[in-house]
């Protein structure tokens, strides 16, 4: 079982879109995938054609089958807290719910606190921070230490600042930067507007190809 968790360095980094698109890309590679939305907003399901009424799970959790072998679980904020930080029985129930019939578990997390809690439940969890390449992210990376590997998102190769920041981050011994970089692509916006993962609705886009690369990299990670 491959456990992968993504959270944003701050809000609005595109983490949920990436988790949905990565789940779809892994599913296309023949993996049985469960997407777990622990953010409490229920946005993840929207990327996989779940009804708008599913937004903001108020109590407990909701489950959808987006396709055979591609499922979505969305937890309310309170339920997430119980599952991650509750008593032993609650945490065991959570583990039983999410494990079993899948090859890959993909978590969309609200922040590093959830990643820490989930990491204590699943020691083999691979954690990644999604970040845009901008000055605000640089300040955060400067002030906060002990970060998980960075997944750079919305990268603009023509931007001098973004190129400079990326170079500095690659040379910073405190930081780990994933080899796959996700470039800015309007296909991401269009995918959510269509309520579909980017690989399905814009299969030939740069975004879709980069998600295929990330999926293969994640599968290789599990092999290691």
């Amino acid at each position, binding site marked *: 079982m491959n456990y992968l968790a993504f959270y944003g360095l701050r809000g609005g980094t595109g983490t949920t879109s990436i988790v949905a698109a990565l789940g779809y890309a892994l599913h296309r590679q023949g993996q049985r995938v469960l997407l777990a939305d622990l953010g409490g907003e229920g946005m993840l399901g929207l990327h996989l054609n779940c009804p708008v009424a599913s937004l903001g799970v108020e109590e407990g959790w909701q489950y959808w089958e987006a396709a055979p072998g591609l499922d979505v679980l969305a937890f309310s904020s309170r339920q997430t807290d119980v599952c991650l930080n509750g008593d032993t029985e609650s945490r065991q129930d959570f583990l039983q719910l999410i494990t079993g019939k899948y090859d890959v578990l993909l978590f969309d997390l609200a922040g590093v606190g959830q990643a820490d809690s989930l990491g204590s439940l699943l020691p083999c969890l691979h954690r990644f921070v999604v970040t845009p390449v901008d*000055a605000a992210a*640089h*300040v955060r990376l*400067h002030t906060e230490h002990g970060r998980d590997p960075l997944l750079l998102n919305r990268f603009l190769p023509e931007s*001098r*600042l973004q190129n*400079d*920041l990326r*170079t*500095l981050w690659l*040379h910073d011994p405190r930081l780990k930067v994933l080899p796959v970089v996700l470039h800015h692509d309007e296909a991401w916006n269009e995918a959510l507007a269509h309520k579909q993962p980017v690989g399905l609705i814009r299969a030939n886009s740069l975004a879709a190809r980069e998600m295929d690369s990330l999926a293969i990299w994640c599968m290789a990670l599990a092999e290691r």
Partner: protein
Amino acid sequence: MAALPGVTLMNVNNGKSRVVTDVEHLLQEINLQKLDYQDIVAEEKLAGLRSAWPLLEELARAAQLAVSEGGNQ
């Protein structure tokens, strides 16, 4: 003892150079407790990048200060 055409070694700690012409002396010279390697070209390039952006330069100075203060404690 094999003769070398002459290798100039520089001590990075005091900047002094000396020419070594045989293998035994060369091995003695490089048998240091700690070999220090500094990629000066890369450091200059990164400093150049930072200097174009005041915020990045200020953050780098702050980080350097924190390191030196930490080292003094």
